[in-house]
């Protein structure tokens, strides 16, 4: 996240635009900035949880599996609130990956047989009102909205 980006977000108030490196250490300050921005929007408390979970699951997925090289990449996050509706867009330049095409985990299996992992996208699909994916200009754009 850059300081400049944070300032732009603060000025626009109803939206925030963050840039972060593809490193797990970048996620913590980005999450703090996002929650600080959300607070004055006065949405329901579970929105903060949803925002935090969305950023963590989408960004860590992207960092872990999104890139075919070890170079530094930038992940963009666009947050906005319109009519008390929160929209989260995460944009990355990793290889094409449509999270909507991922098979949901088999929740009927006994816990002992359950593979560890694969739950993050499932949680977001369950909690969001809408989830969309678009591949545009060699970037993945995942958008989540929640009322």
């Amino acid at each position, binding site marked *: 996240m850059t300081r400049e980006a944070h300032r732009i977000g603060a000025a626009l108030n109803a939206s925030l635009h963050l840039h972060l490196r593809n490193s797990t250490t970048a996620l913590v300050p980005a999450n703090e900035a996002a929650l600080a921005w959300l607070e004055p929007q006065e949405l329901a408390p579970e929105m903060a*949880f949803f925002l*935090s979970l969305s950023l963590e699951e989408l960004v*860590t997925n992207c960092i872990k599996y999104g890139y075919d090289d070890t170079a530094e990449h930038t992940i963009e996050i666009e947050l906005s609130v319109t009519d008390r509706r929160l929209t989260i867009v995460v944009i990355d330049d990793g290889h094409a990956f449509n999270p909507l095409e991922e098979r949901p985990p088999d929740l009927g299996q006994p816990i002992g047989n359950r593979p560890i992992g694969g*739950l993050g996208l499932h*949680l977001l699909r*369950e*909690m969001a009102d809408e989830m969309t994916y678009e591949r545009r200009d060699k970037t993945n754009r995942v958008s989540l909205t929640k009322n």
Partner: protein
Amino acid sequence: MEIGVEIEGLHAFVVLAGRLDAAWSNAVGEALDRCIREGAHQIGVDLAAVSFLSSGGIRVLLAARKQLARIDGTLKLERPSAAVVQILELSGLSALLSQADLEPVTAAASSPLASGTTPKKSGEDAAPPEVTERAGARIESWPGGRVAPLRVHTLGDPDATLAGRVNKLIPWRFPAGSLGLGHGAFGSDATECRVRVGEFLAVAGVASTLPADEAAALPDWVAVAGDLVPEIFTAAALVVTGEPDRLVRFEVPRDTAPMGLAMLAEIALARAGTPLAVIVLVAEAAQLVGAALRRPPLSEMPLLRFPEIRDNLTFTAEPAWADSLALVVGVVGRGIQRPLARFLRPLEQDSNLMGHLHAGVFPHRPIRRGRVTLDEIVVPLFEERAPRTLLHLLHDWRQPFGAGESRFRRGLLFTAPLEQA
């Protein structure tokens, strides 16, 4: 996040406060891992103050639960916050909270070393162990065991091996229900095997060798599968028909020195009730001291001659392999006569306690509690965590620089009376 850990014997209580997210999952995973390493089998995790849980957090809880399930332990999530409940419900993991998917723990599990949920085999003696203390360690001995001694055979000539004069390799098969240790290799014929002869051990239907022709080689292993029985071409070996069935479990408290190999040999001999005993030890090692052939004994050159010894053998000049899991197979005894005496070495200074023991060294994993059989332990050990090396265990008592002897914190000792064939 704040992580509080209290360990009390078999039980651990972990209190988490804050965000259990990707950034904190490793630290929480390490805390749970430490509890298991230190012997806790029943872990409670208080989640009342956990405000956030992501898939990264669930991952470490599930991993700990799986690890505990393998040793009949339990992970109980207690007092979950509303956020935790919501995420676990959406993940289909509410059972983690109620433990409904786990077999109920029997009342006997309140005894620290009771078998808990370990299923009893039909005909297995379910009597409780006799508990004693030795050098500060808790020792449990289960009754039973066959009366007639097992028999040990010697194969080949150990002195010829150490002198680099191996002329003949003897093929020997190790089906389940037999064991052995010595120098040998896997292969289809003796010629092929000669260049690879190194340390080997075999027990419970698995044989493992450390090929000596390649300095960085890892042990190979073969398990009985259908008609396939592991076969080793051996230069010199001790082989035992039958498996030790007298079980002793030992556990050394954290503030007490880990138990030395010589002491465990004494315990085995006392349990066997004979001057000669066979040992299979599955134990968490505090340190291992030993050596391994790194050049096959074919060169007509004594392996132990200085300075070539440095190329011919690897030797743990300092205690090594702390926190590993060791599978030790061997023969121990007092006042032993030839021909067997040629295969044994002193286990302590100024003593007639002798032994020959080889260890397979594995990454750490906790050992299941309760009464278990060798078959239940050995094959999964190889299948789930391949051995890192094999060692011929030594006692290096040179003062002040000797590495000492191998020492263990807790484990299972299988033993039986033994006689020379």
